[in-house]
């Protein structure tokens, strides 16, 4: 189709993804021929220090990890905003600098709030 944008720059990325997938899968596929397959139920029980497992491992779990995940989203978005700003820093000058200071300042308020709320403590 004429006029369609083909990101040729990214073609090598596609190739490396394919090759990397092969590197990941080939040893496993090759292993199918080579490795022994002698299974019995006891061998297939999940490891729990030599005891039969009790309870369901994939249950509802502490909320801590959840908060960290939310914080990550916030701060990672901040980081993503910073990248283009950093690359274009020479061109946007003082105006851009002050703008970013304001942006970081707003985030910093949230950051201090999170700290004060003890969301970063684990006890």
């Amino acid at each position, binding site marked *: 189709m004429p006029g369609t944008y083909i990101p040729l*720059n990214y073609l090598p990325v596609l190739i490396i993804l394919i090759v990397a997938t092969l*590197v990941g899968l080939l040893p496993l596929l090759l292993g199918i021929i080579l490795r022994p397959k002698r299974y019995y139920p006891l061998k297939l029980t999940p490891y729990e220090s030599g005891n039969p497992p009790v309870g369901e491992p994939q249950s509802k779990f502490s909320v801590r990890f959840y908060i960290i995940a939310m914080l990550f989203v916030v701060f990672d978005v901040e980081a993503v905003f*910073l990248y283009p700003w950093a690359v274009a820093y020479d061109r946007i000058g003082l105006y851009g600098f002050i703008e970013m200071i304001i942006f970081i300042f707003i985030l910093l308020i949230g950051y201090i709030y999170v700290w004060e709320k003890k969301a970063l403590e684990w006890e």
Partner: protein
Amino acid sequence: MNIGITAIKVVIVISVTMLHVAYVVYFERKVIGHMQARLGPMRVGPHGLLQPIADGIKLFFKEDIIPSGADKPIFYIAPVIGVIAVLASLAVIPLWEGFSIADLNIGVLYILALSSVGAYSVILAGWASNSKYSFLGGLRSSAQVISYEIALGLSLVGIMMLSGSANLSDIVRAQSDYPFVLIQPLAFFVFLVSMIAETNRAPFDLPEAESELVAGYFTEYSGMRFGLFFMAEYAAMFIMSAVATVCFLGGWNGPDFWVFSYVPKIAWFLIKVYALIFFYFWIRATLPRYRYDQLMGLGWKLFIPLALVNIGVTGLVKESSNPIVIKL
């Protein structure tokens, strides 16, 4: 852009990297061995030089055990994701002037994005194993990796401000006079610590803290699947060291006088990468392990503020050296 040539380049770079990975394991065992008053591998080949190959062959012949109750497709795919994420990062690493598989203008972003994908492999492995130790290890790891990724990403912002580009080759070219570590020591420190945490290595190896969680997220993995995790971990160390070399230590640039000017550029690059990998091992042999809450506290309360301060200071210094032009 010739697809054939690119494909050959890709295959060569990946296979050379895999060989490096195998021998980085050997290098680690030797280095740590000598640090601990012992010899390390000595039996297979002269001074144990064939040990990595023997290990690799052995892994092919190991039984592949999938625990009952495991989420099979995810269990199968998790280590492969890890390997893909790590190896694909190789695409943007400039090995010497003009040589990188894909010369992307968002190289830094690409690396960070793929290291996030790597976190998936860990959390999926932990989840799919249907084992509590794996589950805890996977949760720990994902929380740790995402926390330190922020610090890692923020520490690179200063570099991008200085070089005015997110292209890794451009970043290296901007360091032809002096490496950025001299003017960004704080960012380098944050990056160095975060990269150790990001790759789950000691003293931040909590996801696989053997004294608590046995082997963490890959407790249930055996044979070649375990081998893939292992490969991904060491390849990630290689990639992270390469990124640090490119961003802070001047990449392929080396001293350009006397006999040094005859040294090929790739050698400078590899020397720096291996110095950093040695640093990894040195740290592992020296330091005890952090506790989980301490680790998270360190990341959120120290490294993120430090990285932000670094950005502010860099911006301020750069701004004050420029003529003040307010464009509205």
